[in-house]
């Protein structure tokens, strides 16, 4: 049964998904912060924020496992949307802890990874804005093939200060690409930020919406509408997520859970079961992580960096030189 307003306006499975993802995100945030505090991870991870609003937006996209759904770049330090696109807590923890089993065999860091079958394009790089360019190109590819897919990219606000982001937006606006850019404002702003994001969106022909402590159901609808606008050929959409303290972000999640039970979208038992399942998935990932091997240089680097063994200098191979030492003498020598 569906009614107007409240969580019941959404299909039950969407509400359950939002609750499940929120639980996973909250627990993972705590696990990573604890690991960072205890020195198991770099200090950069002490500031990890998983924004439940970002997960709601990502959940409003079409996510499939066969490469036919929407595409998402989940952001540098905010991996919540990756969970909404089918990543697991174990994959996430393997990645941040650079296990040998991580998606990139620990060759790359960042908090996101790449799996286009699930709709994930990940990178953690030195300069913000690049991913808006890349995702604009993905949107261009969708259009070329006549596919009703959008590209969703999460950028932190600092990216707006670099030219790369503007070049990506300029291209997206000029070609009216189906691109949704979510600007996460959850990090301390850089000191020289004079960006008027609303005005800037207008310059690039983009629709703009700014989101504070919006109920997740409403935000989900908003994101779904943005998706339809982008697919309609009206050009990109920029969504600004204004900063919220931890407790206010997670209060949105708790509010959804209470409303869902109150309006019978889910039962209290279902809510408890959902939370238990999410907790079990994170606990399993944490336990399993300790058994995962570290990276192997021979396996991880050899096929990438060197097509052939390094050439050792000087030995004359053919014909043999009277002056040259036999090659065998060079084996094991330190170079």
């Amino acid at each position, binding site marked *: 049964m569906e009614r107007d307003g409240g969580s019941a306006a959404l299909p039950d499975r969407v509400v359950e998904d939002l609750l499940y993802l929120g639980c996973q995100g909250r627990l993972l945030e705590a696990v990573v912060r604890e690991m960072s505090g205890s020195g198991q991870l770099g200090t950069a991870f002490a500031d990890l924020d998983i924004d439940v609003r970002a997960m709601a937006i990502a959940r409003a996209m079409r996510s499939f496992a066969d490469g036919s759904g929407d595409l998402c770049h989940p952001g540098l330090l905010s991996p919540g949307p990756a969970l909404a696109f089918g990543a697991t807590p174990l994959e996430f923890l393997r990645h941040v802890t650079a296990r040998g089993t991580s998606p990139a065999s620990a060759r790359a860091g960042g908090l996101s990874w*790449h799996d286009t079958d699930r709709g994930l394009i990940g990178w953690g790089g030195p300069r913000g804005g690049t991913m808006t*360019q890349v995702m604009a190109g993905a949107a*261009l590819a969708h259009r*070329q093939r006549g596919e009703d897919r959008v590209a969703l990219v999460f950028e932190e606000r600092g990216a707006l200060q670099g030219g790369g982001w*503007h070049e*990506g937006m300029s291209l997206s606006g000029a070609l009216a690409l189906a691109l949704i850019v979510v600007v996460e404002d959850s990090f301390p702003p850089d000191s020289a930020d004079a960006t008027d994001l609303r005005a800037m969106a207008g310059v690039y022909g983009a629709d703009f919406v700014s989101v504070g402590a919006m109920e997740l159901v409403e935000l989900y609808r908003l994101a779904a509408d943005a998706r339809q606008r982008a697919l309609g050929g009206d050009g990109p959409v920029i969504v600004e997520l204004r900063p919220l303290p931890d407790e206010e972000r997670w209060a949105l999640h708790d509010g959804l859970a209470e409303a869902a039970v109150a309006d019978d979208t889910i039962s209290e038992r279902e809510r408890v079961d959902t939370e238990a399942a999410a907790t079990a998935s994170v606990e399993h990932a944490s336990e399993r992580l300790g058994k995962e091997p570290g990276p192997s240089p021979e396996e991880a680097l050899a096929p990438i960096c060197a097509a052939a063994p390094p050439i050792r200098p000087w030995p004359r191979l053919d014909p043999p030189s009277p002056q040259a030492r036999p090659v065998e003498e060079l084996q094991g020598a330190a170079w």
Partner: protein
Amino acid sequence: MTAAIPTQVARTRSGEPATFLEAISEALWEEMERDESVFLMGEDIGEYGGAFKVTRGFLARFGATRVVDTPISEGGFTGAAAGAAHMGLRPVVEIQFMDFVSPAYDVLTNYIATSRYRGAGPLPLVVRGPVGGGSRGGPFHSQNVEMAFFHTPGLKIVYPATARDAKGLLKSAIRDDDPVIFEEHKGLYRAPHCRELLPDEDYVVPIGEARTVLEGDDLTVVTYGLMVHRSLEAAATLARDGARIEVIDLRTLLPLDEEAISASVRKTGKLLIVHEDTRTGGIAGEIAMRVNERAFEWLDGPILRVTAIDSPVPFSGELEDYFLPSVEDVVTAARYLLDY
């Protein structure tokens, strides 16, 4: 109704010799006809046909979704090419003058080149455009950019010297699963001596293989691009004195065909490297080191190099002629080595 075939892509099918530029156009056209995933991006490549008219007539044939005019934002559209490549397309990006590839340096070296390494899979894309001096373009329309990218694992760099190689190598680059920087010397684009009859069939030239343009056993000259032609002129001059010069056209700079280089050095015992790029940090230094590693004991003299001087490319014709390596420079250095 099918759009008319532009003249610059119809030379071979008409049985006529093609210029270097027409060979590039033919390669692009044929690859776009062969594979729907191939598309073009760049500034003014659609209606205008590109600054050098390489893509004239392409828009009418392939439409705006496959011949994409972009804003003036090399970083932006090169990054977008990466996104399209992630989704299975094979973009070919035209940089109007390769001097302007520098705004795309970030995305090329940090994102595109590292894609395989980061577990993000191969990125099949080509970044191509005109390079080189001699056309009085000054410091912003005359540079050679290969060494800006040579140090970056994950990229390939191709720099052909003939129309046949340009077409075959560009086809290989487009079909390659890794990103390729493709440099085209604009001094060769319409040079009459570069006009040649190209094979009728769908041929490719493998990336990573040098070509011995002239065989000899007195001295090896390793070079590429326009300097292949200058080196051949020098070799002809020296031949009148009885010297037999071996000229190797690298064709691909990354990966470097060091086997071909060292095999030639083992034969001749002497090596001269000629490149139009500036001296410091030029590819000559790397080649010299590799010969040191692989063929040191065959050397009968120092390794020398003839290059542009370490300066931005000058605008004045007199200055530019002084700046660029000349045939006389190559002859002088070669005679020094021959007499060594």
